[in-house]
């Protein structure tokens, strides 16, 4: 393995093998024999490997010519979304349940939560309420427990430092330590519990806890190298959706997260953890529609079987399938998008008219299925109470799954569409009508074809014979063509570069908790390239992001 550089200003002193391999293949197309390369040999041509950082500087910056060389995110100080604040409160206090925070407009079920960037007064009040309640319910005795022979004052101080350092994702200053200890003592006049509560309230209402910090320190080139603590914070947010865990904090305090080797090792460690795998599965599932099939109302006379229990099973089946493909089978994205299998239990088997497995969810090949997009959970979710929906299914695939942007309807289009829906009684007829009306066609011709091929599945995702499923896809060029049915189109989608990039984009958006803009585009490109170069296994997507140099590179943002 490459040794980590100790020169702090170098940022990434050396590449981990995985990252090196990825970057080598992606950036220069060079062949490797699978053995670790030296920094010098992995630098681009003409470079001695000695750049602004001195001997052994990061090869990509030394070369300055790789596709990621100029890729850097804007320095950031932004409030954490509620989902992460709540999760961090629970993690820090070892709480059995994650509190609910509803203020500030954020959602907890989407990759981009959409919280308002400000902390309005009502949200500040809610934070205080949630934090004081969580602190009151926490097991202070256990959290404050002293080691054998340890003096009480010393162990309180140890707790104050450890808790605050993890909550703030940075070292605690002497002044902060003294003030927090004084707060603890103030409350302790009533009880130890009260002292604990006051301390927790102060730390968790503090901006150092509530804001994500990626500031770094400037180097001579005008870029900013993150501290080990800031790297730990990034890894915590990405893999835990929360504050860093103990190992990350340990590495941060030892200042060993400045090398790509060390980061790659942490990424590997994290990806082995079941809780991290579950979180990453959540990310993929959220990209692929999430759990909104639960609570989806259907017409009882047509779909009497579509009970809340069945809806929950449908979602579980989809999640389990994604999880198995990602973590047990080591599958690629293409395999997930082209598998004929479904994860079926007795209830789902009955819904689809298939033999029931003996127990639990079992992978089973199912005729007429082609990949995760033909999972009945998605087909039911993107349909109305009574009918299939070409628009909803098409938009989901075209926009959400392939990341194509769709403009808001032009003037008159919505009214036209609503009228059409009332006058024409099949989805095919409506789509054909939209294809003839310029006001509709300008957008619908892009995504309606993606929905038409799914007409062979009814509103709760069962295969149905009869409807015409032919479609002519026009964009993107990599998918364009004429298709008879869903499997042909989905085969092409599963190979499309847009699919790979979109998966990378969604994961980047989740990590940064914001929609992609120009500033993040090169990071997505970098992750996508790295992922492809590593073989494209689903788990490699997270590995590629976690080890991407661009994730940790920062520059001044736009003023």
């Amino acid at each position, binding site marked *: 393995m490459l040794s980590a550089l100790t020169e702090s200003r170098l940022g990434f002193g050396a590449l981990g093998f995985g990252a090196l391999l990825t970057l080598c293949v992606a950036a220069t197309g060079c062949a490797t024999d699978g053995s670790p390369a030296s920094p010098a040999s992995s630098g681009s041509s003409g470079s001695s490997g000695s750049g602004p950082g001195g001997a052994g500087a990061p090869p990509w910056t030394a070369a300055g010519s790789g596709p990621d060389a100029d890729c850097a995110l804007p320095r950031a100080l932004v409030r954490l979304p509620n989902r992460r604040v709540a999760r961090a409160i629970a993690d820090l206090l070892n709480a059995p349940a994650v509190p609910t925070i509803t203020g500030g407009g954020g959602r907890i079920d989407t990759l981009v939560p959409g919280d308002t960037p400000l*902390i309005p007064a009502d949200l500040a009040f809610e934070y205080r309420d949630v934090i004081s*309640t969580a602190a009151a319910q926490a097991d202070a005795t256990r959290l404050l427990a002293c080691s054998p022979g340890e003096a009480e004052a010393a162990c309180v101080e140890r707790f104050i430092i450890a808790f605050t350092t993890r909550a703030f994702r940075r070292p605690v200053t002497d002044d902060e330590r003294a003030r927090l200890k004084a707060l603890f003592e103030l409350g302790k006049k009533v009880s130890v519990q009260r002292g604990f509560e006051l301390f927790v309230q102060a730390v968790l209402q503090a901006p*150092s806890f509530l804001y994500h910090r990626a500031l770094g320190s400037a180097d001579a080139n005008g870029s900013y190298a993150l501290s080990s603590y800031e790297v730990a914070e990034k890894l915590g947010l990405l893999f835990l959706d929360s504050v860093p865990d103990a190992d990350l904090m340990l590495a941060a305090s030892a200042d060993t997260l400045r090398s790509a080797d060390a980061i790659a090792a942490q990424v590997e460690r994290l990806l082995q953890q079941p809780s991290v795998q579950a979180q990453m599965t959540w990310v993929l599932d959220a990209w692929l529609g999430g759990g909104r099939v639960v609570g989806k109302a259907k017409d009882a006379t047509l779909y009497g079987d579509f009970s809340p229990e069945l809806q929950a099973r449908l979602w579980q089946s989809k999640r389990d399938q994604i999880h198995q493909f990602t973590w047990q089978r080591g599958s690629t994205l293409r395999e997930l998008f082209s598998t004929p299998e479904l994860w079926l239990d007795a209830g789902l088997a009955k819904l689809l008219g298939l033999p029931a497995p003996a127990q639990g969810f079992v992978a089973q090949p199912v005729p007429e299925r082609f990949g995760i997009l033909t999972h009945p959970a998605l087909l039911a979710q993107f349909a109305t109470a009574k009918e299939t929906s070409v628009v909803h299914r098409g938009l989901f695939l075209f926009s959400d799954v392939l990341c194509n942007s769709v403009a808001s309807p032009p003037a008159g289009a919505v009214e036209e569409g609503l009228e059409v829906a009332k006058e024409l009684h099949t989805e095919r007829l409506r789509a054909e009508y939209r294809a003839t009306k310029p006001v509709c066609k300008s957008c619908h011709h892009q995504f309606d074809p993606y929905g038409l091929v799914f007409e062979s599945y009814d509103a709760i995702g069962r295969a149905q014979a009869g409807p015409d499923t032919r479609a002519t896809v026009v964009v993107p060029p990599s998918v364009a063509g004429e298709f008879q049915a869903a499997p042909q189109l989905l085969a092409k989608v599963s190979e499309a570069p847009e699919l790979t990039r979109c998966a990378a984009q969604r994961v980047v958006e989740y990590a940064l908790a914001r929609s992609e803009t120009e500033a993040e585009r090169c990071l997505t490109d970098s992750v996508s390239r790295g992922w492809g170069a590593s073989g494209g296994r689903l788990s490699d997507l997270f590995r590629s992001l976690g080890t991407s140099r661009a994730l940790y590179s920062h520059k001044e943002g736009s003023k």
Partner: protein
Amino acid sequence: VSRPSYHQSRRAFLRRVGCASACAGLSSWLLQMEGYAQGVPAAKRLLLMTRPNGTIRSEWLPQGSATVFTLPSISSAFEKLRSDMLILDGVDLKLSGVGSPTHEAGMVTLLTGGPTGPARPAPNDFKNLLPSVDQHLCSVSPSLKSHKPLYVVADGRVDNSKPQVANRAAAYLGADQPIFPELQPLLVYKRLFGAFMPGGATPENLAELERARQEQRSVLDFVMTDLKSLQQLAPSEARPQLEQHAEVIRELEKTLDSTAPKPNASCAVPATPMELQTNVDRNLGAVAAQHLSVLRAALACDLVRFSTFMWTAAASSAVWRDLYSGMGPENHHALSHEDLRNATVMKGLAAIDHWFAQQTALFLESLKTIQEADGTSLLDNTLIVYTSECADGDHSPDNMPIALFGGGSLGVQNGQFLKYDSRSFNDLWLSIAEAFGAPLTSLGAAGQSSGPLRGIFG
């Protein structure tokens, strides 16, 4: 969920001692009480209430003349309030800017009066370009400016899988600066009535209160010091955000010095709302009832003078399957886009809008029963604007369903059904701004307003 015991309440109270923004009104409450004793008229309040997805015009609009009219099925819910009600027709949301008529464009225009800007990543999620009208009213109106506004919603679900803003925002501080309404009645209650200590002002309680306040001052002192350190490091883009956060902390600090009003005949502390799961069909009515109970008390105790109350977010996805037998499974938004020639669809939509009207009427009737210190009713002193983000399921911005309630002491000419000829909703805001002593010459872009509507205020 069981009610907390007195001791639990007291402990919880001491943990969260002090309250947030609304308590800025507490000191003025005392002045108000003194004012009443000297014959000063009661404070004037303004409340915007919205229900989603428009209405069924034929079941909403009165039949008859300006003063002699019958109320069809939906608006019949307001029969008892006829003398405190003014129904308007011929008032349109004059949309301008990006996009065609949609729930989102309607919502942005309703609140801001201005043009819509480019959409966020979710289609149709148009940004606002102007602050919402309340920002002007609450900073200029002599009646409203002393109090912090309140924004609440009883159900925040939108029929859209994206984290949309436009359908959920209650107001806007400025361009693309949405204010999201508060969803949980218990939190609103704690924030507004947190200064009412369980057990009353006994010497022991007061001593504990002072100690708890001292503790909270120390907590906030630490928080503020941390914020100042962070301001030193922040990139310039983040500084306004941190300055706003500092302002919020200062507000929290101020509340530690505020005094709780003493309950009296008109001001009663509402029951503590139970913790209910929000954003689920089965609890929508109960959550709304809790919100309205807190809101009524907040208005009566003069803690709040401007509020918005959204029955649900615009383009609501709530499912009303249990409203009556035969109701379809479609969510409200989806149902609103079905064919109205279908009797089941028509009946379903009318039933939902009637339910909103019925519950609104109960709330308004309760305001009428609260007598203020000057002898007038709370309803007399509160002007309520009841409307929606669009006129109907076709997203029409024309002939918006609008009813005004109360406001008698502001001179509202109640008991009428007034028809206008394609006037702008902004003109209604101009009238209201004038009545609240915060006149505006225009609102929105050119063509979005033409002057106050006449005939509303005497």
